[in-house]
């Protein structure tokens, strides 16, 4: 027998079932491209050599793991889907007298061709888009673009191995199925009679309870800390509820619609309701999965985009200066800077003490839990001059007030311990010590006349807090002429060494490097979120496509009968559209509702991570944008799928 017969047969098989095979090859190619890109970022040494690049590499390695595992599951799922459609074809071969080893040859050839196509496609896309992805990542983590760009060999090897592994596994599963089955079984599989689904009221009830419980938790728990504890259990409740309501709830609703005879006995409703009733039985779990996957994508998008845009703002506020420290003595640090020869462009220095307390009206209480928690920064008139460059004369017992959020002091006086300060005005301080933004509670500045006043306050505070009391320290903040991240990091190390080698207490942090680390961290998160979001989204779309197309073949017979009985082509098409629409958009709409329900809880949790001010509008904008992009891609897939479906059915 001609040795090319089986490969040729395999090729013609692939061509014949292109409706299933083409998306499979695209999915495989897409997975390879994605793995190459993420793998390149995870394994590329160039990134490791950059400042804070190790963190990005680590995040990407995590992402690589997720994409890899998810990819395997997903490719196996599609493979089993395609094979199920082909059982009859294989059965026919068997009846025609093809031996099992010949069938195995055909299957191997098919897999070989598909695999080569996936690899070629995936590597082309990966290499092409890799550079772009790299640039996007660098932009997100705000790092300069290095010259040159090389192909990452380890990533190439990795994704090729992955594809090989997945395809061999799929092939083994397919071979096992074919070699075990007998021809008659193959021929008639997939033609079993379907029973009408029953309404399972218990499941409906369980679904309502769990879903309601999850929603209520998200709405009613207001404390961010408690929310972090209950968010995950609440999400699990909503997932259970979604499964129950999609499976049992949909059947209950459709049956109720069917009982309403006036509604039911109309052409469109008649076909759609009974069609959906059966479709739900087979697909409810799938649709629920799609819904949950979509919700996860949306939540992930909102979180990462919000974090990134919130944090990039916060980082600028948190680290206004290149270096900022609070030291008992600034001399060693100053000396280190001087020795390095780096020019200081801007410099602030003032004495300050910072401590927490509770405000009860106009009295600051230190040894109680009643009242509003707040953080106080106290500086002297001299410190004021150092900060603003203006001189200030305060009479004994007078003080200036300022708050982080800019609100005014509503009382004529402020009492701390046994001292009553007369508030004579407010001031706007340039904030050089960004720690003030690290506090969740309101933060206030107070200017007192002399260092003696500062010491008095320090003593009051000492009495109340004992070992936990703060000391008066000198805040020293500078901007240097240094620009390169490596040079800055070096300077930071020498300053910190100098402090450690002296008996000075306190700390100094480098805004420039911390900011860069923050960008690397949240930019890396965002990139990962976008990547995983894209992967899950495309996976969702493909699942829907496969479901719809395979149902197209089941529905063909039904719509053929309907046309014979007197339904026009146009009516058939309208009915198809409304059915496909329902199946498609039910998960999307539910995902939207879930996300909206989770939104208040998410904003509360994000506000812990974001620094200071309220950013609900920002989160809402992120959410809407994420939902918009998501829907757009979803609608595109819908259009494609609806066309393929109509072509099969019509």
């Amino acid at each position: 027998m001609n040795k090319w017969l089986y490969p040729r047969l395999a090729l013609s098989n692939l061509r014949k079932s292109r409706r299933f095979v083409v998306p499979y090859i695209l999915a495989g190619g897409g997975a390879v491209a994605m793995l190459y890109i993420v793998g390149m970022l995870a394994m590329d040494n160039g990134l490791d050599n950059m400042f804070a690049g190790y963190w990005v590499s680590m995040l990407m390695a995590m992402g690589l793991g997720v994409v890899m595992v998810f990819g395997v599951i997903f490719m196996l799922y599609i493979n089993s889907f395609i094979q199920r459609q082909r059982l009859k074809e294989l059965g026919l071969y068997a009846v025609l007298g093809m031996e099992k080893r010949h069938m195995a040859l055909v299957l191997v050839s098919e897999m070989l061709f598909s695999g080569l196509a996936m690899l070629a496609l995936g590597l082309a896309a990966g290499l092409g888009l890799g550079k772009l992805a790299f640039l996007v990542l660098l932009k997100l983590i705000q790092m300069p673009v290095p010259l040159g760009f090389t192909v990452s060999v380890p990533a190439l090897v990795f994704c090729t191995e992955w594809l090989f592994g997945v395809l061999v596994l799929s092939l083994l599963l397919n071979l096992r199925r074919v070699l075990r089955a007998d021809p008659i079984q193959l021929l008639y599989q997939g033609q079993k009679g379907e029973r009408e689904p029953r309404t399972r009221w218990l499941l409906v009830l369980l679904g309502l309870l769990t879903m309601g419980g999850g929603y209520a938790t998200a709405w009613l728990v207001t404390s961010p800390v408690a929310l972090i504890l209950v968010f995950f259990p609440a999400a699990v409740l909503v997932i259970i509820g979604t499964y129950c309501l999609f499976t049992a709830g949909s059947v209950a609703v459709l049956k109720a619609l069917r009982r309403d005879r006036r509604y039911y006995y109309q052409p469109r409703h008649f076909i759609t309701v009974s069609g959906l009733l059966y479709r739900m039985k087979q697909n409810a779990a799938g649709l629920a999965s799609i819904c949950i996957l979509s919700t996860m994508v949306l939540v992930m998008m909102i979180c990462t985009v919000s974090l990134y845009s919130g944090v990039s703002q916060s980082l600028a506020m948190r680290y206004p200066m290149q270096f900022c420290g609070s030291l008992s003595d600034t001399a060693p640090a100053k000396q280190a800077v001087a020795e390095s020869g780096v020019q200081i462009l801007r410099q602030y220095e003032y004495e300050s003490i910072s401590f927490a307390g509770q405000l009860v009206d106009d009295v600051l209480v230190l040894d109680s839990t009643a009242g509003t928690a707040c953080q106080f920064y106290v500086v002297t008139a001299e410190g004021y001059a150092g900060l603003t460059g203006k001189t200030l004369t305060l009479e004994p017992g007078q003080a200036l007030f300022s708050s982080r959020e800019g609100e005014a002091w509503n009382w004529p006086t402020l009492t701390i311990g046994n001292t009553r300060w007369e508030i004579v005005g407010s001031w706007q301080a340039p904030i050089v010590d960004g720690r003030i933004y690290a506090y969740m509670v309101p933060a206030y500045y107070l200017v007192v006349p002399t260092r003696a006043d500062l010491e008095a306050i320090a003593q009051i505070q000492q009495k109340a807090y004992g070992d936990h009391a703060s000391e008066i320290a000198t805040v020293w903040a500078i901007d240097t002429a240094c620009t390169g991240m490596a040079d800055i990091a070096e300077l930071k190390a020498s300053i910190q060494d100098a402090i450690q080698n002296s008996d000075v207490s306190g700390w100094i942090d480098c805004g420039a490097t911390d900011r860069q680390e923050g960008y690397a961290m949240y930019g890396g998160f965002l990139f990962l979120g976008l990547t995983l979001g894209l992967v899950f989204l495309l996976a969702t779309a493909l699942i829907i496509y496969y479901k719809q197309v395979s149902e197209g073949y089941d529905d063909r017979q039904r719509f053929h009968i309907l046309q014979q009985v007197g339904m026009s082509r146009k009516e058939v098409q309208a009915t198809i559209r409304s059915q496909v629409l329902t199946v498609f958009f039910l998960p999307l709409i539910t995902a939207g509702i879930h996300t909206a329900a989770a939104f208040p809880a998410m904003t509360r949790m994000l506000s812990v991570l974001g620094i200071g001010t309220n950013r609900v509008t920002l989160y809402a904008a992120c959410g809407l944008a994420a939902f918009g992009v998501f829907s757009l891609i979803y609608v595109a897939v819908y259009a494609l799928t609806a066309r393929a479906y109509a072509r099969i059915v019509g």
Partner: protein
Amino acid sequence: MSILQVENLKKTYTTRFGGNLVQALSDVSFSVEEGEYVAIMGESGSGKTTLLNILATLDKPTSGRVLLDGQDTGHIHAGQLAAFRRDHLGFVFQDFNLLDNFSLRDNILLPLVLANTPVREMDRRLPPLAESLGLEKLLDKFPYEVSGGQKQRTAVGRALITRPRLLLADEPTGALDSHAADNLLRIFDEVNQLGQTVLMVTHSTRAASHAKRVLFIKDGRLYHQLYRADQTPEQMFGRISDTLSAIAAGGGRYE
């Protein structure tokens, strides 16, 4: 008055490769009177299914025309065809063609629903029809829960509920056992006695022997016809068998 007039019907198919012409119908003319019960007999490939498809407006003739109540079905606008089928014709198929996801009741009501008939009218038409078909206890069952004969009776119900001018049946007993087939043919006799015009395509002598007139078709031509007049089905059965033997023997046109 003729309900159906078929004039010089011709249908030619072109094979996909090579452009060979296959003549499915070469020149068929006949007419069916109101209240008649006509069977068209022929072997596989004789052109009877092509003929039925053209009568059913599911296919178009190459030349010639079909008049239903004097209206040329070839001139009906494509968008109106489905409505025309729904309002004027009833179909019974060999393999029932019921929809699995509808109860028997909904299968029968299907054409009425498609025609936007009010629920009140459905309620008026269904019970007597279901009773005459012996389905009144089965209406809430689904096709996979009932026997072949019951399925085919449901299909007859679906065909008759619109009160069509013409009931077209394509090998209606083909998938039934003899008992169910007899049952179905008795139902056809009954509806015909009530005035329903029936046109059936079959190669079962037994089924054809119930008709009032049998047309024989061979190689795309009308070959012969028999009238039952006042003979019993059993006598008719004999005559049909004789005719079929004669045709099979390859004799010339005999009459």
